[in-house]
């Protein structure tokens, strides 16, 4: 049985990564050519890893379900990327970025990993600038920074509101260069459906060609999963329509532990839901909270009148408005971390003070416009205001915006050790799809940092420590019985799905499941709800496998089949989320258990019993997963209660 | 350098340079033509003679013919390639905001080409290769009385209408072509491009109005 060995190198925190690199095994150039690596996903982590591994001389095969690697959902990140450059001379340092990330993650992430992340953050900025990423600049020609997500220093680099796009296009450029050179082979419109293990080691994947429906076999000496998070389980999220957790889920079923599935992030500034036809939620950059003030009416009757369309927000006088974040958290006000801001909005709406459909609060720029002038506000947020107006058809310069929290990011994911290897040898997980760096809550502008850190600067080193022992392994044949069996399993599953021929479409089912997941395993959870969720999800799973309807054939382009396969996994992921949330009897970061809160309604952590990573091991379709605990040790940081008052 | 004209951009460069060259020629041609509005036919005939016999102009003429031919040749190659770039068209015709006349460059080009052919037969070939043009004598030198030929043609209503219409289409061609040539040359500037566009419109107006008033004047007043 696999055990949890995080393989954290010895030595003082600041020297661990240097020490690791000094003693790790490397593969010589002649041998690199003989080794094949599969990378699944071409977002920031996947594209940067595939490109870097290609540059080193490995044979890389990269896969994405989109029609082009450039469309991976990293592209939608708006705000920016953190780095400890201290260009602003405001006292930033590697240690401070490390400290902020651990604290922001509510002390549920690994010290060594996070320190390494902070350490390589500076290299990322250098790398991206060299690639021609057009970061914002000062008039003197040097890079501009902004403060983000309530950080005390300005360490966020940005490219307008399209930082994710620019970083991804940088990585896509690097990847394209390797494709041109022939070191990377790209497979677009190709979705991984299973991983193949030979003698306990990851040796390949089974994919479905999304154009022809053909099932394909691909072999390699190591497999890297960079397929993002599972936020789309909720149906409504800020994820792309195709974002899915299936690759991570398939490897879970083959022995990779799944860590902290309950830790999902809810982003406070999204455009609220406005109808049952809605297919996704649009996020607006958190930077809006730098100048916008969040409020709901003080009186319930005002809120009701607004919902009924009898009153407009501008009709509510100043004294009748409840700026609840400023009221509850005078020190941080509207800039409290994402999880705190989100829960506060839910609390007000649940209490009946919500506006719009009842599930929305106001984000008001009237004061900012008066203080700074319309031009300044326009220069800072013009593109966001325009986006809001396009979607909602209201002018935010004249009437307050409406916002509501939405599922945005999943901190949980495949358990990995210091080398980013999962509990299956030769199988790696990088970027959002692993659990490693953000603990229970991710800070703004840290996702891009982690994705690129893993892909450019961590995995290309650590994977060699494994591959150095594989240089004598000849090319893996796809004719091995393990491949044949995996293909059969994949095909059986697809035919089973096609043959259900029930009544419900995949989307209608997913909506139903997502809503239940949101209600019971969403922003706030309790024991009763989670137990109900576990029971309901089991029933829903049975219902799904009896009543889903997929038109068309498996041997053609069939988006309904793709979705069905993903939703089948989402239901199981939801089940594990509920199980993990039920097990974690404390409130921390994005995980809020109603039973565990202070008298003032703040999250109450339980460090004595739960300062661990919950890694779940799959035991079979009808068996409960087994929990493994990786205890977290904080040797370089004092564990404190987060306080934003 | 060697293979620049095999690329699409290189061909466009050729089109642009030749186009500007042909506009300049049109302006010179207009200058000569306007002489016909004078009371005496002599100035026009002398100028026409100069244009036909001066050695520099004769060399220039080779370039001019070459220019026309290449402009047409590259235009056709590009057009055919452009048609082939979309073998299956749209059901609903495009209604994007575009430079309107840009959609009809090939159509206006065909009309101009037909006009040019007739024009060459009527005047250039007649004067150069036949004896159909009468001879006049100024100061002991013989000149083709091309002016008489022009005046005679411009008394024919059908000819006048055809002539004017051709220049209307020419203006359509130039309205897009002039500014487009500069864009192709890589000249696009916040300040200068609007000026270039205005110069294009002025040039087009001068050419169209200039060439149009001649037959009208002749028809009604001579």
């Amino acid at each position, binding site marked *: 049985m696999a055990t949890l060995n995080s393989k954290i190198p010895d030595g003082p925190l600041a020297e661990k990564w240097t020490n690791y690199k000094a003693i790790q095994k490397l593969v010589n150039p002649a041998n690199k050519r003989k080794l094949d690596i599969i990378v699944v996903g071409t977002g920031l982590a996947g594209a940067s890893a595939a490109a870097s591994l290609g540059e080193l001389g490995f044979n890389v095969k990269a896969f994405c379900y989109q029609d082009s690697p450039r469309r991976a*959902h990293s592209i939608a990140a708006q705000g920016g990327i953190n780095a400890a450059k201290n260009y602003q001379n405001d006292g930033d340092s590697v240690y401070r970025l490390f400290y902020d990330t651990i604290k922001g993650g509510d002390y549920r992430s690994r010290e060594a990993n996070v320190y390494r992340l902070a350490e390589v953050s500076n290299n990322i900025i250098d790398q991206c600038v060299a690639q021609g990423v057009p970061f914002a600049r000062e008039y003197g020609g*040097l890079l501009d920074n902004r403060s983000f997500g309530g950080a005390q220093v300005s360490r966020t680099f940005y490219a307008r509101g399209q930082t994710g796009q620019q970083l991804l296009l940088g990585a896509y450029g690097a990847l394209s260069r390797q494709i041109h050179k022939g070191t990377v082979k790209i497979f677009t419109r190709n979705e991984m459906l299973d991983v193949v293990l030979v003698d306990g080691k990851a040796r390949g994947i089974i994919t479905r060609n999304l154009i022809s429906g053909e099932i394909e076999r691909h072999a390699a000496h190591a497999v890297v999963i960079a397929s993002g998070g599972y936020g789309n389980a909720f149906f409504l999220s800020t994820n792309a329509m195709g974002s899915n957790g299936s690759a991570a889920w398939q490897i879970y079923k083959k022995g990779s532990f799944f860590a902290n599935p309950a830790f999902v992030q809810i982003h406070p500034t999204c455009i609220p839901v406005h109808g049952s036809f809605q297919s996704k939620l649009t996020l607006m950059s958190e930077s809006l909270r730098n100048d916008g003030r969040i409020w709901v009416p003080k009186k319930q009757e005002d809120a009701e009148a607004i919902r009924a369309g009898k009153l407009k927000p501008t009709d509510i006088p100043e004294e009748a408005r409840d700026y609840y974040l400023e009221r509850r958290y005078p020190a941080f006000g509207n800039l409290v971390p994402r999880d705190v801001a989100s829960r506060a909005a839910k609390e007000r709406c649940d209490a009946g003070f919500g506006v719009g459909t009842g599930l929305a609060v106001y984000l008001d720029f009237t004061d900012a416009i008066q203080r700074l002038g319309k031009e300044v506000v326009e220069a800072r947020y013009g593109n966001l205001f325009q986006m809001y107006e396009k*979607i909602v058809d209201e002018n935010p310069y004249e009437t307050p915006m409406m916002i509501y929290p939405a599922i945005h990011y999943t901190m949980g994911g495949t358990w990995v050790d210091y080398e980013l290897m999962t509990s299956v040898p030769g199988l790696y997980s990088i970027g959002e799809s692993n659990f490693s760096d953000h603990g229970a809550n991710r800070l703004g502008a840290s996702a891009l940092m982690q994705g690129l850190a893993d892909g450019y600067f961590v995995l290309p080193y650590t994977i060699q420590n494994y591959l150095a022992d594989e240089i004598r392994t000849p090319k893996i044949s796809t004719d091995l019985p393990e491949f044949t069996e995996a293909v059969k399993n994949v095909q059986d599953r697809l035919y089973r799905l096609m043959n259900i021929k029930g009544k419900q479409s995949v989307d209608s089912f997913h909506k139903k499941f997502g809503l239940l997941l949101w209600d019971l395993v969403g922003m706030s959870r309790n024991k009763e709800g989670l137990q109900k969720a576990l029971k309901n999800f089991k029933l829903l799973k049975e219902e799904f496998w009896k009543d889903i309807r997929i038109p068309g054939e498996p041997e053609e382009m069939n988006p309904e089949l793709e979705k069905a396969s993903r939703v089948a996994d989402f239901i199981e992921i939801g089940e594990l989320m509920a199980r993990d949330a039920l097990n974690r009897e404390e409130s921390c970061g994005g995980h809020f258990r109603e039973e565990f809160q202070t008298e003032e309604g703040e999250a109450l952590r339980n460090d004595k019993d739960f300062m661990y990573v919950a890694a779940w091991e799959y035991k079979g379709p009808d068996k409960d997963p087994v929990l493994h605990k990786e205890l977290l040790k904080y040797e370089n940081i004092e564990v404190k209660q987060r306080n934003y008052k | *350098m060697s293979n620049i004209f095999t690329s699409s951009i290189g061909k466009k460069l050729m089109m642009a340079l030749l186009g500007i060259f042909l506009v300049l020629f049109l302006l010179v041609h207009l200058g000569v033509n306007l002489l016909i509005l004078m009371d005496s036919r002599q100035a026009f005939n002398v100028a026409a003679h100069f244009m036909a016999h001066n050695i520099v102009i004769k060399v220039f003429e080779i370039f001019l013919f070459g220019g026309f031919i290449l402009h047409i040749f590259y235009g056709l190659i590009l057009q055919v390639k452009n048609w082939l770039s979309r*073998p299956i068209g749209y059901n609903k015709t495009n209604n994007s905001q575009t430079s309107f006349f*840009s959609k009809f460059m090939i159509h206006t080009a065909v009309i101009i080409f037909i006009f040019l052919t007739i024009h060459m037969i009527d005047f250039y070939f007649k004067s150069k290769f036949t004896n159909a043009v009468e001879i006049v004598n100024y100061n002991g030198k013989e000149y083709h009385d091309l002016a008489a030929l022009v005046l005679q043609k411009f008394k024919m209503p059908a000819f006048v209408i055809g002539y004017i219409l051709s220049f209307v289409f020419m203006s359509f061609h130039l309205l897009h072509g002039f500014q487009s040539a500069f864009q192709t040359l*890589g000249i696009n500037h916040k300040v200068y491009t609007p000026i270039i566009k205005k110069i294009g419109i002025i040039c087009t107006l001068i050419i169209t109005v200039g060439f149009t008033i001649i037959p009208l004047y002749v028809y009604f007043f001579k």
Partner: protein
Amino acid sequence: MDLTLKIWRQENARAKGKFVTYQVTDISPDSSFLEMLDVLNQQIIDKLEKPVCFDHDCREGICGACGLYINGRPHGPDSAVTTCQLHMRKFKDGDTIVIEPWRAKPFPIIKDLVADRIAFDKIIHAGGYISVNTGGVPDANAIPIPRNLAEISMDAAACIGCGACVAACKNASAMLFVAAKVSQFAVLPQGKVEASERVKAMVAKMDELGFGSCTNTGACEAECPKEISLSHIARLNREFYTAKIC
């Protein structure tokens, strides 16, 4: 809103396609165009037929996956939006909407409204990048870059590779797409090093793939969801001449 939809249906790349007319009723003016198509697809699935295939992913106007030719305009009757950002309030109750895929020789149809835009990737593979390996690069602030140049570069870099420029162009030209990438790097000192090789390789690939040539009609600029300007095409031309002549 009640609408009549005329949609291009095509089984696969080899099949002959045709327009099929559908009716949808009770569409919210606040829904996006793709959400309206979701409603249609639900109807089709309820009838046990195959839903309409179309590319889409982020549904917030940045991934560049969606792209439909709606009533004669790529991304439909609104400016500076992708199809997923187009909202039904831009239409009137009772309208007939004709929905076609991108049409261009280098963009063959895969199925229904799904066109294959791999040609764009191939152009980038040919040279749409700065050739630096991971690591070993100078400090990010080692080369100051004038702010206005960084802004021009960003204007061009905003391209999402959706292909609306090709779809709108009467010549199916990819010049705006190529220009955006060439321009992004041409104004930056990092990009100047291999500017000449880059522009030559990308233009050659563009020609080879069968895109038409630019006749400066401006349709691409008008339909670009990211409002990328024709001035970048002029810069591409300059870069190309410099590369070829100097």
